[in-house]
């Protein structure tokens, strides 16, 4: 049993400073983020969505370290703050793995810490991130994603109704849903001929620890080598369920994910606060859950995407801070404003991929903002963004910045009125699992256009 976890984390959640939640947010967190931002002179340059100033990245890291040491994490169940000293935080950060195995057998992949401008091929996490699908489309959709040879890692979609039972949280259906979905994930990958490919959002089906325990129980087919989902409540809060999940994942020695979503315009403020907060969230994952990797998807407070110019700056500078100052494995997750099957998604994806790859992030794409319609997924768009990631791997930050800037200009004026796009059945034939003619035609046309605009697809080796 992870006794140090109970002493160091649970103990502090029961004995740390006690305060009201609103006081934590308004009097501790919000002023401190502004204070460190000014102290370390962190300032957005909107003309540089992919910054290439190492001293800026290092300052963001130092600001995050001071911020997290001073602010900590608020436990909403105990009303206490879990705090660590700077030394304890850095010890936890440097105890994080530099690489880890995900999946089993021939489908296993080693995922590593990436450096700024890293020339190595990244693992491609091609995903239907945070999507819900209907039960009748679950296997066709998952199989369509997994039949793509580029797909190294995968996020399974959620199903809201299984065999006529509506899945809830913190009730008996959480156990039913989480265990059934886990078994469905396992069956889907076997049907697709990829029995060992890692599911990177394992245990996400239930909001409480019950869901994680149900998904991990013997018989579901999921193993410690999936990515098991934990994470805070935005901003910098946890509850006892999240701590209980962490205890279980640590005890089981499973691959532990920390999913974080700092909000632009919220308590962290602007892009500078989001950048600092994003790095501090990695430190939070290391101290609270001894994480294997962190997946971050900063989001705009109204539009819920992360392809705005200032969002990309925040994402990129924070990944550079992590890449340069820690051994941690970190994923950047794309959330576009435009939906599946639209032209604009390729430009959003290109701007994001250029920055993420040059800044030391591992890529994970695509999630869509703007309404939870079932079956709103697009394997071919995720594939296109993955190919962009491969094409721009190793590109310098300065070159990536120029290209990203030109792509952002192609869509930034349209973000307030997005086309939410199409459903799986519009884009694919669910019987043959093949893209429809017009879907394929758009993909090829866009690839040619992107090449002309500077994405060097000819660089892709494998």
């Amino acid at each position, binding site marked *: 049993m992870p006794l140090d976890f109970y002493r160091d984390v649970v103990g502090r959640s029961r004995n740390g400073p006690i305060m009201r939640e609103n006081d934590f947010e308004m009097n501790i967190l919000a002023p401190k983020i502004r204070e460190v931002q000014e102290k370390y002179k962190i300032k957005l340059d909107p003309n540089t969505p992919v910054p290439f100033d190492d001293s800026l990245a290092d300052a963001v890291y130092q600001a995050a370290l001071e911020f997290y040491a001073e602010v900590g994490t608020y436990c909403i169940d105990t009303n206490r703050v879990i705090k660590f000293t700077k030394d304890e935080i850095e010890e936890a950060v440097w105890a994080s793995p530099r690489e880890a195995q995900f999946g089993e057998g021939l489908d296993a992949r080693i995922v590593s810490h990436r450096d700024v401008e890293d020339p190595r091929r990244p693992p491609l996490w091609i995903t239907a991130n945070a999507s*819900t699908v209907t039960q009748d489309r679950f296997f066709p959709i998952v199989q369509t994603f997994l039949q793509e040879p580029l797909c190294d890692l995968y996020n399974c979609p959620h199903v809201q109704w299984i065999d006529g039972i509506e899945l*809830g949280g913190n009730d008996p259906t959480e156990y039913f849903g989480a265990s059934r979905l886990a078994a469905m994930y396992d069956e889907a990958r076997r049907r697709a001929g990829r029995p060992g490919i890692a599911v990177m959002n394992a245990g996400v089906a239930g909001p409480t620890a019950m869901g994680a325990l149900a998904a991990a129980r013997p018989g579901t087919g999921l193993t410690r080598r999936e990515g098991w989902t934990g994470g805070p409540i935005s901003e910098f809060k946890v509850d006892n369920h999240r701590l209980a999940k962490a205890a279980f994942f640590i005890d089981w020695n499973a691959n532990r994910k920390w999913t974080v979503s700092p909000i632009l315009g919220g308590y962290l403020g602007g892009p500078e606060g989001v950048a600092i907060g994003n790095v501090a969230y990695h430190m939070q994952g290391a101290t609270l859950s001894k994480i294997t990797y962190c997946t971050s998807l900063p989001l705009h407070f109204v539009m819920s995407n992360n392809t705005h110019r200032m969002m990309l700056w925040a994402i990129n500078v924070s990944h550079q801070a992590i890449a340069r100052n820690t051994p941690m494995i970190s994923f950047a997750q794309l959330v576009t404003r435009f939906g599946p099957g639209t032209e604009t998604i390729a430009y959003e994806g290109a701007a994001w991929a250029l920055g993420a790859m040059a800044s030391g992030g591992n890529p994970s794409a695509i999630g869509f903002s703007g309404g939870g319609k079932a079956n709103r997924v697009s394997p071919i768009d995720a594939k296109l963004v993955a190919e962009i990631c491969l094409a721009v791997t190793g590109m310098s930050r300065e070159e990536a910045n120029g290209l990203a800037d030109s792509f952002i200009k192609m869509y930034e004026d349209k973000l307030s009125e997005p086309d939410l796009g199409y459903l799986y059945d519009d884009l694919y034939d669910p019987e043959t699992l093949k893209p429809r003619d017009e879907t394929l035609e758009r993909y090829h046309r866009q690839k040619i256009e992107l090449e002309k605009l500077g994405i060097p697809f000819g660089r892709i080796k494998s």
Partner: protein
Amino acid sequence: MTENILTLIKDGVVNGDPEQVRKYVTEAVESGMEPQDILEGGLTAGLEVMGERWNRLEVFLPEVMKSAKAMKVGFEIVKPQLGSKDSDFRMGTVVIGTVKGDVHDIGKTVVATMLIGAGFEVFDLGVDQAPSMFVDTAIEKDADIIGLSSLLTTSMAIQRDVIDLLDTLELRDRFQVMVGGAPTNQEWADTIGAQGWAADAHAAVAKAKELMETKKAS
């Protein structure tokens, strides 16, 4: 004099300074200024400035929340002067919260703060709230709208449960229900019988105003 004191009230709201707002609203009331002038020219005008700045990302949630609190201090002083005309100067009353089984609060807080900025009186229940809490509070506060947030597919069904409880208590016609959150959509709102759904916080405010106009017209 009138213009000067309204500017001081407005500045107090913009700066999130409840003492400044209290001082000058009290002074304005005692000098016999029309309460609707204090509301529109000072308090609401201040929050409108903050709303515009928030849209441009010049200020953020904490600053706007402080301004909303300062505005509320002033509103409580003006309220007795409005008497029966109180409702004429408010857009409406909203009880809002995140439903049971879900502890995500930022999206709901953003919407609540924007609603205050738009002139609504808002009672924020927080997170993880059972259907009866929404209904009991809506009755107690004589609300116009119940706002239900859910970020998780697993808690969406609680939005429907609130409407079912209203039906059971035969209170369905008394309140407008709005739903929101990442997994929701118009189809879901239609299915459960919610009058309003919005994809984002700006759309939520527009929808709440629309529902109130419909209610006042009927």
